[in-house]
């Protein structure tokens, strides 16, 4: 009989709440030997930056704020991501769980396989590309980031439904303004989406369903839909208030 893990479907939330809920689940996961898989999305649209990134090096803060786009620093490393038309997932599990490798790259590969199998169900072939990407036809379709804290692994990542590189770069800064156009074209060449791969747009819910099945297969677990606990909700609100909703955190680099 397959092991049972929790499935959380939390839909649209703002950036600070999304990051706070991932952290709340991580913090409350102490000692449990089951994992949680969560799917979510971002409203309003948002940019998340990696833990080590300089917020003013990466984003045009004024433009984001004028366009109503949230900006939040993640607890995980990695690069800046524009969260628009995508499905985001997170996995939280005990670091010592037998399915989780000590080796970080191996665990990326293992966990990312859920997306690969989910995309396969949609008719898209893809593969894990170290360090933390999933590519389809040589182009990036998903980015992922992992942290290990308090004995737990948190990995979250994005699966692009459609992609709009131009808008994305309207809000992100580039290292050299002189080659901005060239850079955008280069990124357009390197990034794809589910819509692009299938030459048609498919419903968000269909993608979510495929990903639930994909992760369930990749992890070898049954995903059981649950609600977030009142303890998680309370902690999420506290973390949102004290961390992801504050300039102290978001502007710390």
């Amino acid at each position: 009989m397959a092991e049972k893990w929790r499935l959380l479907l939390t839909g649209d939330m703002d950036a600070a709440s999304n990051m706070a809920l991932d952290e709340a689940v991580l913090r409350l996961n102490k000692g449990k030997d089951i994992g949680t898989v969560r799917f979510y999305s971002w409203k309003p649209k948002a940019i998340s930056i990696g833990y080590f990134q300089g917020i003013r090096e990466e984003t045009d803060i004024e433009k984001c704020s004028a366009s109503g786009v949230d900006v939040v620093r993640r607890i995980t490393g990695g690069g800046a991501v524009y969260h628009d038309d995508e499905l985001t997932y997170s996995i939280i599990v005990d670091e010592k769980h037998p399915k989780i490798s000590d080796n970080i790259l191996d665990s990326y590969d293992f966990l990312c396989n859920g997306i690969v199998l989910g995309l396969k169900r949609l008719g898209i072939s893809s593969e894990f590309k170290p360090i933390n990407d999933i590519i389809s036809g040589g182009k990036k379709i998903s980015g992922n980031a992992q942290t290990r804290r308090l004995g737990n692994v948190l990995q979250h990542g994005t699966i692009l439904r459609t992609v709009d590189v131009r808008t994305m770069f309207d809000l992100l800064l580039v290292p050299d303004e002189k080659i901005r156009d060239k850079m955008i074209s280069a990124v357009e060449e390197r990034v794809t989406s589910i819509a692009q791969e299938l030459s048609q747009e498919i419903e968000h819910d269909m993608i979510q369903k495929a990903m639930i099945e994909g992760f369930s297969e990749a992890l070898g677990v049954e995903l059981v839909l649950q609600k977030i606990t009142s303890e998680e909700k309370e902690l999420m609100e506290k973390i949102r208030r004290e961390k992801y909703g504050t300039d102290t955190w978001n502007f710390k680099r």
Partner: protein
Amino acid sequence: MEQTPGTSKDNSTGSSGDNSTGSSGDNSPRISKGSSIYKIPEGKMIKVSLTMKDNTIEEIRITGDFFAHPEDSIEKMENMLMGTQFSNIANDINHFIEDNGIQLVGINGDGIVHAIGSAVKNSI
């Protein structure tokens, strides 16, 4: 150049006062600022911005799209580097990584050393 974060108090001290006074004041420290961007081959980006006082690192910030576990080890590394001689950093950094069991993903100690070296080289 001008990547000054919001909280900077650097402008008031660094710009003109300190090192322009003595015509032959050899003993007055030379303050300089530099920054660099270094992409690790097949890996991630490291950005360094720093302030040097002669050959000593006064302030340093290491940013980028890399991964480091545990995450606060980069802040600790920055703190460790402040006040150290630039000539020793290769040793300092590699020992620091080893002694603290830091796992770097997408970058490595030599990459950080390289990025700091470039920032020092182009500091003015």
